[in-house]
């Protein structure tokens, strides 16, 4: 399946996401989920980024928290709300919010 996963929290979502498998997996960091894309914990990037997936982070939620594009891990693409709409309709058939 083509699965888009909305990750809206920083810590508690790692375990749930770890278990997900899909032929095509997209992980969209929104709200405090954007810290997965920007913050290293003790020097280590979020383990979610080691998954085989496409990663996106919502630009408004980065800016709201004082984060900029230069903070974002190179594996993650910064997207707008409009981009998210296109991801939903063009790239992923099933969507979950964890």
């Amino acid at each position: 399946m083509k699965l888009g996963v909305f990750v809206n929290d920083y810590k508690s979502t790692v375990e749930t996401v770890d278990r997900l498998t899909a032929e095509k997996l997209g992980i969209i960091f929104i709200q405090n989920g954007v810290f997965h894309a920007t913050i290293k914990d003790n020097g280590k990037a979020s383990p979610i980024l080691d998954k085989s997936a496409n990663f996106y982070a919502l630009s408004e939620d980065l800016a709201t928290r004082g984060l900029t594009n230069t903070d974002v891990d190179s594996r993650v693409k910064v997207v707008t709300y409009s981009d998210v709409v296109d991801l939903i309709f063009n790239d992923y058939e099933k969507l979950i919010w964890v």
Partner: protein
Amino acid sequence: MGTLTMACFASLVGSKSLDFALKLAGAAADKGHKVNLWLSSNGTMIGKAHQKHLKDYSTAEKPVMELLKKGVEICTCEACALARGIQKTEAIEGIQWNAMHWYLAKIYNSDRVLHIGGE
């Protein structure tokens, strides 16, 4: 163009999940997609008219009116609203009141579903 049905269980104030849902609904409608939004649990707080916009708090009345104008269908869970003391007479006009099967029926006719659970 497709149909997106969303649900949001999170409260209006004290969570940005409902803000997210409203913004995404607006962005999808602007691109010509059909959008349905089901509000349950604390999400039903959105349906109340006359929310005071203080600068510390999200308010939904204005964005909700705009979404309704764009043809987004919004429905609130009647039981969840009543349990919170929100009466139909206090509701924002244009928001539908119904039960959970409304949501399932909208899902039936949708291309995409984004269910935003509680907390």
